[in-house]
């Protein structure tokens, strides 16, 4: 960051569009960031949760399919526009939700990241507690206090490392990613060696529902919903890649495929050691002995700090979208503000996210599936992946994305319709489904309904009212976005060079 001038620093550390020359994350670095973000210990929890419904073979298939479907929704919604303009996910939601309405996306980002970071840091605490208890340094009775203390230390470590800015994250991410993959492979080998592949392959699901179709679709749905929680992360990271092509396959492979492949280890572990629920901290020492268990637990601690940093980075970026915070809140204060709610949850209810993981995932689907749906409809069908940067960042009353009082009713109607569809199909609290959930799942129809409602209202209300910038020249030539009206007229009248 030391080579950047003040404006670049504000853009990279803040929410301003990143210039192409500042987008320094190539395919390898981006793949490293994506993999290191995706393969933290939540893969074990997610895989372990699928084991409640499905055995190894069907679980593995639904997990890969769900991850790939989920990442497609995010890619269609965000990838082109965030890499094209160097903006993050929340800024990219402004045309659909409105200049003030996009704070709703900010709130979703904030809540989602708080949930995931709490999960990670409790995991970190569990790993540290297991090390101390396995080696006899602490007794079993100290487990819960140790989880909280080490979770808090993880918060401090993530904040301290992020003081170096996002460049620090980029530099260490690939190494962490490689280490996590090695850990996962070693875990798999240890499991197969100790328990036997036949035992894992033949193990029944832990607590399946009566309907086999429900179990199968739920395995798929859990991974789609889990993947949708990457909505805030994707914009925050791919904006630092130089182009859409560079970002495409690292995103598909680093998030979509990596998460599904490595979550399988959580699935297999939960089937092999049913009481673990896929939590490796409970069986690493038991399965691998101290020589494998302790280094692996230590590595989980390191990996979880790295993943927490990515979450803090994207939510700090989102926080700095708020005009009053943009220039008044320092980078360090923004990251601290992002971590503060995690500290509160760690102190008051450290196991809440763990104990309600299925509900947490379903709520992710309830809110992010419709959001992807309206963005896909808007960017792919109406705007052809263009937006007016001036209206996003400098928009004022009367500008393209101000709509009515800063809110786009089409966006919020789409979100409500999509969320209603999801809740109708799958109750996120009771996990009870209604037809046609068994055939369509919940996230995909939710995104579809949200997109259709958004499209209809946009076509028949927003466009006729002249709002949203759909009739502006910017829709056909993004270069015009930066030009004032007088200059725009000159540019349009100039002959096109051969």
């Amino acid at each position, binding site marked *: 960051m030391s080579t950047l001038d*003040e404006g670049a620093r504000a853009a990279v550390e803040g929410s301003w569009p990143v210039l192409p020359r500042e987008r320094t994350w190539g395919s390898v670095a981006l793949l490293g960031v994506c993999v290191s973000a995706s393969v933290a210990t939540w893969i074990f929890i997610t895989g372990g949760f699928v084991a409640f419904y499905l055995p190894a073979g069907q679980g593995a298939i639904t997990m890969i399919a769900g991850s790939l479907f989920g990442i*497609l929704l995010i890619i269609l919604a965000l990838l082109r526009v965030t890499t094209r303009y160097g903006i993050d996910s929340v800024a990219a939601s402004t045309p659909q939700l409105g200049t003030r309405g996009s704070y709703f996306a900010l709130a979703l980002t904030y809540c989602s990241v708080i949930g995931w970071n709490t999960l990670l840091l409790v995991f970190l605490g569990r790993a540290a507690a297991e090390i101390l208890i396995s080696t006899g340094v602490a007794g079993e009775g100290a487990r819960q206090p140790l989880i909280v203390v080490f979770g808090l230390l993880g918060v401090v470590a993530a904040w301290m490392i992020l003081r170096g800015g996002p460049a620090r994250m980029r530099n260490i991410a690939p190494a962490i990613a490689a280490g996590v993959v090695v850990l996962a492979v070693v875990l798999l080998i240890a499991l197969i060696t100790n328990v036997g592949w036949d035992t894992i392959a033949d193990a029944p699901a832990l607590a399946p529902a009566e309907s086999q179709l429900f179990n199968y679709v739920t395995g798929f749905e859990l991974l789609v919903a889990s993947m949708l929680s990457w909505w805030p992360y994707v914009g925050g990271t791919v904006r630092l890649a130089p182009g859409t092509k560079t970002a495409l396959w690292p995103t*598909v492979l680093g998030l*979509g495929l990596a998460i599904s492949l490595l979550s399988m280890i959580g699935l297999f572990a939960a089937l092999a050691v049913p009481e673990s629920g896929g939590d490796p901290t409970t069986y690493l020492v038991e399965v691998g002995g101290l020589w494998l268990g302790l280094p692996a637990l230590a590595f989980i601690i390191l990996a979880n700090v790295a993943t927490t940093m990515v979450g803090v980075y994207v939510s700090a970026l989102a926080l700095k979208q708020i005009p009053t915070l943009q220039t008044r809140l320092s980078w360090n204060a923004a990251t601290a503000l992002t971590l503060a709610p995690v500290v509160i949850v760690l102190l008051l209810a450290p196991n809440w996210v763990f104990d309600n993981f299925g509900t947490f995932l379903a709520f992710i689907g309830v809110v992010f599936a419709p959001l992807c749906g309206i963005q896909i409809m808007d960017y792919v069908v109406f705007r052809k992946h263009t937006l007016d940067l001036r209206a996003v960042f*400098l928009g004022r*009353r009367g500008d393209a994305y101000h709509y009515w009082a800063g809110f786009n009713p089409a966006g919020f109607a789409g979100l409500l319709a999509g969320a209603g569809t999801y809740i109708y199909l799958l109750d996120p609290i009771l996990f009870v489904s209604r037809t046609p959930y068994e055939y369509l799942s919940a996230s995909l129809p939710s995104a579809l309904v949200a997109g259709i409602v958004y499209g209809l209202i946009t076509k028949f209300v927003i466009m006729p009212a002249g709002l949203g910038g759909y009739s502006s020249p910017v829709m056909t030539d993004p270069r015009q976005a*930066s030009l004032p009206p007088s200059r725009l007229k000159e540019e349009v009248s100039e002959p096109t060079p051969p």
Partner: protein
Amino acid sequence: MGDLRYDPRLEAELEKRIGLVAEADHLTEPLDRRDYLTLLIVTVALPVVMLLAGWWWL
């Protein structure tokens, strides 16, 4: 994210930045038809085949 109340210096900096980003649009590697086709094969066709195969054979 509009309705900003920047000071004029920062607003000018942001205007300049927005202009530079828009001018460099041609460098941002849009996906072509082949990219989209490959993406759809990998993220839609392949998962559908896998799901059907998993349901019928496992």
